[in-house]
């Protein structure tokens, strides 16, 4: 059924075959340093994009707003398309996932939306209390984003305690909706980064997947030193055995009761 690669890993005759394998993915030694690097690069890229849009706005605020709108549409569209493909085509090795596509798309959309919120050409900024005069107030908008990120990470505790980061506060329904969109983009960004970090820092991850799904998972891994191991194959020969779950529960109820408190090593190959 399989042909071997030069380094020994067997490949099935057709890559979109539905055979499921047991894999393990082990992060490399440098994975733990990726958190500060990732955060610094993300913050740096966001600042760079906003600075470039700010420069453009000095020449023409309308052109800058159009560019920011294009960034927002491109980023959110690309992100939605990527997630939809991930949901619908996980088995397909041609789904083409890549590690940085999701976070980069969110970052582009976030930069575009932050610029639109602060842009004079759009008019959203007038709905916020605490906006400075015509001067440069990029730091205020960044503080607003930082405060909303903190709210997300800390379950909105700052709101319950009455803390506020930065001077900006939405004072009109339009500004409230704009802030909600900002929070949505930030939530997606935080989830994207957290999911990848969890994978890198949680140690060896075992999972069952076809070659296509495994390709997507490997491509979605930020750590270039991560190693993937093929540990087994799920054989699906013979008839499917079907039973009522309540019958299965009753058949082994006595065994489960007998060893209710008996501690056993966890089987890493199980997924529950």
């Amino acid at each position, binding site marked *: 059924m399989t042909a071997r690669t030069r380094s020994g890993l067997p490949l099935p005759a057709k890559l979109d075959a539905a055979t499921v394998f047991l894999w393990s993915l082990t992060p490399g030694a440098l994975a733990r340093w990726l958190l500060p690097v990732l955060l610094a690069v993300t913050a740096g890229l966001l600042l760079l994009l906003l600075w470039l849009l700010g420069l453009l706005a000095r020449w023409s605020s309308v052109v800058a707003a159009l560019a920011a709108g294009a960034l927002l549409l491109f980023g959110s569209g690309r992100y939605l398309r990527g997630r939809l493909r991930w949901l619908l085509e996980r088995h397909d090795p041609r789904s083409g996932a890549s590690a940085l596509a999701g976070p980069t798309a969110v970052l582009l959309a976030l930069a575009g939306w932050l610029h639109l919120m602060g842009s004079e050409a759009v008019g959203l900024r007038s709905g916020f209390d605490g906006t400075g005069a015509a001067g440069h107030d990029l730091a205020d908008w960044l503080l607003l984003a930082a405060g909303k990120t903190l709210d997300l990470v800390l379950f909105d505790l700052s709101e*319950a305690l009455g803390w506020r980061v930065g001077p900006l506060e939405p004072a009109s329904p339009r500004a409230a909706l704009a802030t909600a969109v900002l*929070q949505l983009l930030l939530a997606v960004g935080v989830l994207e980064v957290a999911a990848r970090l969890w994978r890198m820092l949680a140690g060896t991850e075992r999972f069952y997947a076809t070659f296509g799904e495994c390709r997507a998972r490997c491509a979605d891994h930020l750590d270039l030193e991560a190693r993937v191991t093929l540990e*087994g194959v799920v054989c699906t020969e013979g008839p499917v055995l079907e039973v009522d779950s309540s019958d299965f529960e009753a058949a082994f109820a006595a065994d489960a009761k007998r060893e209710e408190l008996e501690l056993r090593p966890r089987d890493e190959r199980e997924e529950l």
Partner: protein
Amino acid sequence: MSAPARPTVRLARQQIREHFAWDDPSIRCWSLHRPFAGPLESRLVEAAALPILAGVLPLLVPLVPLWLLSRLAPRAAFWVAVALLGLTTLLYLLAAVMSLLPRTNTQWRDMAANRPLFPALALGFLLAVIAVPGSPVGAGFDFGDASPAAGLWARYVGEHAGSILLLDVPRSVVGRFTPLQPESGLAIAAVILLRVLFSLGVVEVVALSWRRHVRRRVFHATVRGAWVACVDPFGQKGVLRHLGVLEELVQPETMLAAELVVKLDDRLRAEDGCAGETSAGRATENR
């Protein structure tokens, strides 16, 4: 071309132990389907029922007996609610910690499977702790012009739930639903716990829905693991199917993940190229 359909053999309860052994260490592929009655609407009903069964019912169930108890003995109701809040929060933390330990037993696994219920239960007990008449926690709130009543507390919880679920939009657009404001340290702590428990409850219910609906309920486990999966916190019956067995490689084979991606992409390009050439060749022959 799809693989031919495999025959299905239905087992009676007496036949189960002939095919599966409790101590069998091999990992098997199972699917677990818990359909609601009615073939057409079952998926929709199930999708809507799960958040209610796992999130709303466990929240409301503790409130009724504690409300009745508070009519007879308010002080006792407060302390019972405090004790049960502590117990359910502790059980939730224990279930979360246990799922990370290298050793486990059937009871712990069962508890971990029921984990989504604990935040909702704890939230119900917390609401009782806050709203029971004479509660020192409830007394720490500034009521403004309003007087303490069940409807006021319900609106206050709805306000926080809406602000968590809908990213603060209702509060910013419509304004506040109640004049309630935590003043004392106990009241602030209760509001923080309310928000944390509600957020955890939402995360747990979403994760549970994901496992039940999106992952199509196929899982790989020993017979013990399949037994734990069959124990349903909502008592819902289902159909368990045994689909296959894991065969481990004698010598597992390793490579860089990035290298695997490149190799698979090369292989796909080659496959697609071959398919393109073959179809082009066929077209030429046909002409």
